């Protein structure tokens, strides 16, 4: 459980800074899980906290779990807006994204994993990113997304099962056995 921020007496910027310190990694994980684009995730993260600034007085009075839920609500709206803007553009060239930096021997495996994660259903990918990238527990993910922790655990289990199958991890283990 996150510690409540010492906010009511703090200056608004100090309150925002504390919110950032507590939630930025999870929010970045959420954005990256959806966009698979580090720059876009960083831009959306910045915009989330600028919106939080406009409501910092209300946020400062919220319980810790509620503020997480509020921030992820803003994050969800920003993502929807960015998808709409992208869809409205007539023809945008694909980004020249650099190859992921992985040792040569691991590169194929890394690319396989990237592709397998990209193919996961959105809600499984979202839960996986918040868990693996954001370091949140199932309960914290549920708190952020407004879902029961059991549902999050189920989504994570499905994601791991799918990844294991697609990466052939199970097959390799069978061969080894």
């Amino acid at each position, binding site marked *: 459980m996150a510690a409540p921020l010492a906010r009511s007496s703090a200056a608004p910027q100090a309150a925002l800074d504390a919110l950032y310190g507590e939630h930025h990694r999870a929010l970045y994980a959420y954005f990256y899980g959806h966009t698979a684009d580090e720059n876009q995730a960083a831009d959306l993260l910045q915009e989330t906290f600028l919106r939080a600034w406009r409501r910092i007085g209300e946020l400062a009075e919220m319980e810790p779990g509620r503020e997480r839920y509020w921030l992820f609500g803003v994050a969800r709206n920003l993502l929807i807006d960015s998808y709409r803007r992208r869809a409205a553009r007539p023809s945008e060239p694909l980004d020249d994204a650099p190859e992921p930096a992985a040792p040569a021997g691991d590169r194929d495996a890394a690319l396989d994993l990237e592709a397998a994660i990209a193919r996961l259903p959105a809600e499984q990918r979202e839960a996986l990113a918040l868990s693996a*990238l954001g370091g949140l527990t199932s309960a914290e993910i549920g708190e952020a997304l407004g879902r029961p922790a059991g549902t999050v655990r189920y989504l994570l289990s499905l994601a791991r099962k799918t990844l*294991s199958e697609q990466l052939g991890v199970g097959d390799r283990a069978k061969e080894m056995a």
Partner: protein
Amino acid sequence: MMDDIRTNLDERLAAWAGRHALSDARAEAIRRAVLEQTEVAAQRDATWAALRAMPPMPNLLPSEEWWRRFFTDLAATALRAAGAAGGG
């Protein structure tokens, strides 16, 4: 055997997270950018609050020249506020 499978996937996911996690340097850059923008917004809000708090001037209709100077001063104040917040 299940433990092997789980470990293998955990290792791969940990490597994936290591490649894509937000670096401390970038997190700090975003934090600074947010705080700088909020500083500008706070100064702008303070300027407007001060203007709103100005007492009315009864029986005195501002001239066109007065309004021109008023907006010139306002723009200069906003620029100074933005410059101060941006560290420039």
